């Protein structure tokens, strides 16, 4: 993720240790993937109780922007910054492959604003617990508030495994109420050049940086 952000901005992002309380005012906080605490208890559960989370919550309450990817999304959920839950993949398999995402019609946010609604992005996933689950009333609320940002989508009519984890309504990413926090299972930083198999992640992250920093 650091390499990806550096490639886009030309600057090296600050790394923040999870035990830090004092964080400076930042344009964007990215919580990357990475199996914190070995996924013990529940994915992201222990990291979500780390000291730095209080500072991240303060950053959000000041209107700050946060992107959580994969384990970062799980941490945002466990920290109750985003609602719902991420449970075991339906087929019980660790899934590591490319998926196709569709940009949804949602509230204004700095992550997708430069992209078109219905636009498709090819971005890989790599997770064991990415099956987004929301009770019915929450799902209804998310739809009404326009907080479903990204969905896995079929490339062909007869495609069966386009959803890599069995998530409710093919959800791949959701937004906070104010649109300033996005959690997503797919890894945009793993689709940065042709050797990765595609550059849609670069497109996505470049758009985020442009929307946030200008």
């Amino acid at each position, binding site marked *: 993720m650091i390499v990806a952000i550096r490639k886009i901005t030309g600057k090296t992002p600050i790394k923040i240790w999870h035990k830090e309380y004092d964080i400076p005012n930042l344009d964007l906080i990215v919580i990357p993937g990475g199996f914190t605490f070995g996924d013990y*208890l*529940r994915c992201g*559960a*222990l990291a979500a*109780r780390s000291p730095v989370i209080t500072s991240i919550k303060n950053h959000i309450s000041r209107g700050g922007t946060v992107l959580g990817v994969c384990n970062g999304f799980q941490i945002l959920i*466990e920290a109750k910054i985003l*609602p*719902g*839950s991420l*449970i*075991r*993949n*339906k*087929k*019980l398999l660790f899934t590591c492959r490319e998926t196709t995402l569709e940009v949804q019609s949602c509230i204004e946010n700095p992550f997708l604003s430069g992209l078109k609604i219905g636009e498709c992005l090819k971005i890989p996933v790599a997770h064991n617990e990415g*099956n987004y*689950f929301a*009770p019915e009333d929450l799902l209804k609320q998310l739809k009404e508030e326009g907080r479903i940002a990204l969905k896995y989508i079929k490339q062909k009519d007869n495609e069966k495994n386009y959803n890599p984890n*069995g998530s409710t309504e093919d959800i791949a990413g959701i937004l906070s109420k104010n649109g300033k926090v996005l959690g997503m299972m797919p890894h945009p930083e793993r689709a940065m050049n042709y050797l990765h198999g595609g550059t849609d992640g670069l497109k996505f992250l470049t758009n985020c940086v442009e929307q946030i920093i200008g």
Partner: protein
Amino acid sequence: MKVIVNVSLKEGVLDPEGQAIKSSLNNLGFEHCSDVRTGKQIILNLDQKSETEVIKQAKKMCEELLVNTVIQNYEINILKD
């Protein structure tokens, strides 16, 4: 005092691990097994004497960390020697 916390998935939440176990049990000839749900057991050792206080503390631990109340239920029992 030892406390046992049993964490289980709420009804309606998909349990793919339980489903896989059920299917294996059926294959072994346990055809009457119509559903399997999995969970987790956490055993705590709390240095306190009062049972009410122990239960109160364990409940707080469940709500703050041990349980994801969106998808899980829990049950607290004191382990008697």
